[in-house]
């Protein structure tokens, strides 16, 4: 839950810069490389969240098995 909240906070921060169309917005500078950085970071964060969820599911089953014995 905590991780999801942190992710949501970061996402809102990124979204805030994405929608602000001012001249000094970094997302419009340097050939828009920051857009690519954001896209790859979102994909990687998604994969990490997926790994964390598999991890938690495994942990749950491990605990169940431990309690049963």
């Amino acid at each position, binding site marked *: 839950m905590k991780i999801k909240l942190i992710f949501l906070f970061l996402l809102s921060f990124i979204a805030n810069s994405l929608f602000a169309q001012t001249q000094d917005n970094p997302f419009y500078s340097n050939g828009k490389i920051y857009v690519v*950085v954001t896209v790859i970071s979102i994909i*990687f964060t998604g994969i990490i969240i997926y790994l*964390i969820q598999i*991890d938690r599911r495994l942990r749950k089953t491990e605990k169940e*098995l431990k309690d049963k*014995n």
Partner: protein
Amino acid sequence: MIYSNWWKYVGAAFVLYSIIGGLLFVNPNNLLFLDETVRNLNFHVPMWFAMIALLFISVINSIRYLKTFDIKYDIIASKCAAVGVLFGLMGLATGSVWARFSWGDWWTADAKLNGAAIGELLYLAYLILRNSIEEPSKKARLSSVYSIFAFPIFIVFAWIYPKMVTNSMHPGSGDTVGFNKYPLNNNLRMTFYPAVIGWVCMGWWMTTLLIRNEFLILNKSKNKTPD
């Protein structure tokens, strides 16, 4: 290290940092003939570091299996090799794309490329050998012995032999110097080392998920009440 968590977050943070920094920190005036593709150093090379780290853990656990005949070491060894092979395939694929646009071809008859491919096949053979034996203890014993031979041969083919040849286009082998000798500023180092640590942690994380799943299956079959 299988059940603890902290290093997972360290690894994920390092890789995320290397993605952001790897794309942004490079000084465009210092890119040499590689141009913008020099950034690939942060992504292509850590694949091989992760692979070698996993294969090293694999061979250590193969030796531990032969010492104790405890099946859990064989599970660790085999899953490390499986994820190691995956990272190797990623290394070959990313290297192939990089080669196409730096050297002009998807694959060149280079000692480094062929050596890495032979090393990859060695470990594919390990996985196939395992799958072809039905009896668990025989499977574990044979593949552990194979693994002890495969690891040094892999290191020789993928690492030592490419350094010994006279001509190679791959950095760090033959007559081509490694990235550490390039006249680059330290911006690459700042992201490269965290990327290596990060991807090794990621590889181990992916492996532990498979290992824990196998351990659960093992426990389930052990605790089955005879009826």
